[in-house]
C-alpha cells in the first residue's frame, strides 16, 4: 500500500510542476494567478497523501491553513485586477 501511495505522491508533485509551467509561461497576469490558485489546491492533496504515509495528523493542518490563505490571496488579486485596464 505504501508503494502505491509513493507513486501517487510523485504523480501529484509532477502535476504541481506542470502548474508552475503555466505560472512562468502565461501570457497575461490572470494566467499566472490561475496557475497559483490551482497549485495551492494541489498542495492540499499532497498534504493528505503525506498524512496517510506518516500517520501524523498535524500535516492536515498545513493543508487547511493553505486553503484559507490561498482564498484570501486570490480574492485580493481579483479585486486588484477589476480596477485596472489592460491597455492603458
Amino acid at each position: 500500500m505504501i508503494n502505491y501511495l509513493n507513486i501517487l505522491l510523485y504523480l501529484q508533485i509532477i502535476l504541481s510542476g506542470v502548474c508552475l509551467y503555466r505560472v512562468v509561461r502565461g501570457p497575461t497576469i490572470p494566467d499566472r494567478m490561475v496557475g497559483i490558485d490551482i497549485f495551492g489546491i494541489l498542495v492540499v492533496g499532497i498534504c493528505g497523501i503525506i498524512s496517510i504515509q506518516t500517520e501524523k495528523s498535524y500535516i492536515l493542518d498545513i493543508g487547511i491553513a493553505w486553503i484559507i490563505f490561498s482564498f484570501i490571496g486570490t480574492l485580493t488579486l481579483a479585486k486588484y485586477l477589476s480596477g485596472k485596464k489592460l491597455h492603458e
Partner: protein
Amino acid sequence: MATIILICIGVLFNIFGCIGLIRLPDVYNRLQAATKCVTLGTCSILVGVLLHFGISNAGVKALIAIPLLFFAATVAAHALIRGTYHFGVKMSDKSVRDDYKDVKDEVS
C-alpha cells in the same frame, strides 16, 4: 483498499485538470477546466484520508477541510474570472458567444 481507489480517482481527475490547464487556448477555458477537475479530485483524496483514519483526530480534520476547500476554491475562481473580464483580456478566436458583454454595465 478503498483508500487507494479513492486516491487513484482523485489523482486521475487532477491529471485531466492539469492537461486542460496546459492545452486550452485562453484564460477562461483554462480556469473552467482546471478549477472543477482539481477541486473535485482533491475532495476525493480527502475522502480517502477520512476513510483511512476513521473518526479520529486526523479524520475530523479531513472532514473539515472538504467543505472549506469546496466553497473557497469555487468562490475564488468566480471572483478571479470576473476580475479578468473587467481587466479586458480578450477571448480566443474560436469563441462563439459572449452573453456577459451586454449586461456588464448593469451588473457592476
